[in-house]
């Protein structure tokens, strides 16, 4: 067992998958000579050469589409889009092509590709560089959307994404790259796509998150344990398909739920989770489902404004306590 960063877990997995399968290659802006905007691909150009680690022009629609075309001929491109905000330039290729080609042509060709891209605010990058728009892709049948929250999950899920025959949007997070976690030495686990995980068992309330918010949910649960509150944490891990069963089973057990999400509240991923809870656990709910999400504004640059706009340990803790009070447990 070794403790490594989320970044290192991604890099190690990319490297191992490239060694395992000659069809796997990387494409993206500044991933080669520059070694990646966030250094995920550091050292890979030197090791694999330009054929396997391909720097692209700033042309997201062009190179994401080229990856789809290459995947149609059987290659397994792993594309890096510098941040999820820039995926909007490629959205026609992702939604109208990658997601459609298998079904629209009657299952004749699959599109085995991965789009790796980080979301996340909190870096003072302003309105256009701080968005969490994974919802757009999670909405679309034909795509698979993964959102790992720990280094071990990142490795196991990236392995699964690369070996899967469908287009996978692999959501990373700027706030997670430096986070550390245990990854078993020589681990070859391939995650099962479409499964959520109960990452912490509890009995009082269910706290649901994904990506960075799953990590923050764990911190909230840890802190509340000291106050005698038992929080069950569900890490969604897969946004499409969505593992409703795991969510509902947890809520049936605890009787209440809070959803923490880094995206906007209205129409957000939390709305879908809340609807699923209502449909699957209506009779078990002792309090309304609460959502903690980003303030619905274009993200400001100034630090105090940005911090106020983001969900935090404090705001999630407040929502958990208020929900438990609504249930009738006085938790202060």
């Amino acid at each position: 067992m070794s403790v490594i960063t989320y970044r290192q877990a991604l890099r190690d997995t990319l490297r191992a998958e490239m060694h395992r399968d000659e069809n796997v290659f990387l494409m993206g802006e500044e991933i080669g000579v520059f070694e990646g905007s966030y250094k995920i691909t550091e050292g890979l150009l030197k090791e694999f050469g330009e054929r396997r680690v391909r720097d692209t022009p700033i042309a997201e629609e062009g190179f994401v589409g080229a990856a789809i075309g290459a995947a149609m001929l059987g290659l397994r491109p792993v594309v890096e889009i510098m941040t999820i905000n820039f995926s909007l330039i490629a959205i026609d290729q992702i939604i109208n092509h990658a997601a459609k080609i298998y079904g629209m042509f009657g299952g004749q060709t699959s599109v085995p590709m991965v789009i790796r891209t980080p979301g996340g605010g909190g870096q003072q990058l302003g309105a256009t560089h701080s968005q969490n728009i994974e919802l757009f892709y999670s909405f679309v049948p034909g795509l698979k959307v993964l959102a790992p929250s720990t280094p071990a999950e990142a490795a196991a899920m990236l392995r699964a994404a690369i070996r899967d025959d469908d287009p996978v949007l692999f959501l990373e997070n700027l706030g997670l790259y430096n986070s550390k976690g245990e990854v078993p030495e020589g681990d070859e686990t391939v995650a099962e796509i479409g499964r959520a995980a109960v990452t912490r068992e509890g009995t009082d309330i269910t706290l649901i998150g994904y990506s960075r918010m799953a990590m923050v949910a764990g911190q909230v649960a840890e802190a509340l344990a000291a106050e005698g509150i038992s929080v069950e944490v569900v890490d969604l891990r897969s946004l499409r398909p969505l593992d409703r069963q795991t969510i509902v089973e947890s809520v049936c057990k605890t009787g209440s739920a809070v959803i923490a999400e880094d995206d906007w509240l209205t129409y957000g991923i939390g709305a879908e989770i809340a609807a699923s809870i209502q449909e699957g656990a209506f009779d078990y709910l002792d309090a309304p489902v609460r959502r903690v999400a980003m303030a619905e504004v274009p993200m400001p640059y100034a630090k105090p404004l940005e911090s106020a706009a983001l969900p935090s340990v404090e705001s999630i803790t407040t929502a958990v306590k208020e929900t438990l009070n609504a249930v009738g447990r006085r938790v202060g």
Partner: protein
Amino acid sequence: MRVLPRQLDQPLLRPAVEPGVGAHALASPEQQATAPAFSGSTGPEEADSYVERHTMADTAKPKGGGTTRSTGGRRRSRKDSPSNIADEQPKVLLEYYRQMLLIRRFEERTGQAYTQARIGGYCHLNLGEEATIVGLMTALQERDYLFTNYRDHGYAIGKGMSPRSVMAELYGRSTGAAKGWGGSMHMYDTETRMLGGYGIVGGQLPLATGAALAISYRGGDEVVMCQMGDGTTNIGAWHESLNIASLWNLPVIFVVINNYTGMGTPVEASSAEPELYKRGSAFRIEGVRVDGRDVLAVRDAAANLVERARSEQRPFLLEATSYRMKGHSVVDPAKYRTKEQVEEARSNDPITAFEATLEKAGILTEEAKQEIADSVREEVADAAEFAENSPHPEVSTLFDYTYATPVANESRRMPADPVFAE
């Protein structure tokens, strides 16, 4: 060394074939006399000086001046096919004629079936483009790949797909090319390497570029052909794809079918450079314009570029001028066209012209003409009958094609189903 396209009004540096020699009967003498040069192949030894000359001429010319602008996009290439009809095998010529007629009759039947509501959705026909399609498809090897836009029925047939599977797809039947999942705009066939008709303008360009990347990655010798309409040269995917294809030396031929109208908008109203084959110059992609009504000219121009893409590993741009004989789609009465334009299109029917050429050369006898007409009519009738009698897809297959790799918790909810079944 990459070679820039020659300007239309510049003299040929070295014609691929001597003009006037071996001209077949498609072009009249006066057409030959006014024939602007099209870009033939320039030898690598001339490339350097040519690049210079092109660049200097281009910068010296004020925007809006010069022959190019004053003639707008309406000038059509009258370059004769370099092929001498007497050098061609009569059998081959008759096969081109047969294929052109097959596409014509197939599309007429399609239009009919559409107005009878046998075919749903949008329906864009290839009427008037038969020579272009047959010329282009003849230039490809079986192992080469094809991507097209939504006006794809004729291309599908030309690439080798059976009229039955294309018609059945139009009818939305389970025997169709895409099992009834694609429809008119989305023909596809792995076996013949027709890698799709695409409904989003420009969508196929990055895909075709990526297919060429896969070929290059594996060191293969296949070539990708990517067809599109004139309106596509203005969308971002055009610029991004041509840039990437040239930058990475990918074997892809971008083919622009210029029928001078993007739905109802004239090419001059949408493209600042209406001489579309020149638009590759920004990416150092050599462009060639050819008369799309001339099957042999198209074949020769395309074959030349296809083989050069294969051997030189780089992209090319081919513009085929074309007449759309009907509206944008079956339901479009094309009111934006003048009577003269409609008349011009009719008088430029590529099939009538080729027929006349073959008859004059003594290749197409009255008997052969009747025989071909009958066999084509039969094939189209058979395709329509096959489609008509084919089963509709089973509703139980609705969730069969969302994912290639089965996945946990895939939503398979029918309308009005509860999310959690008891």
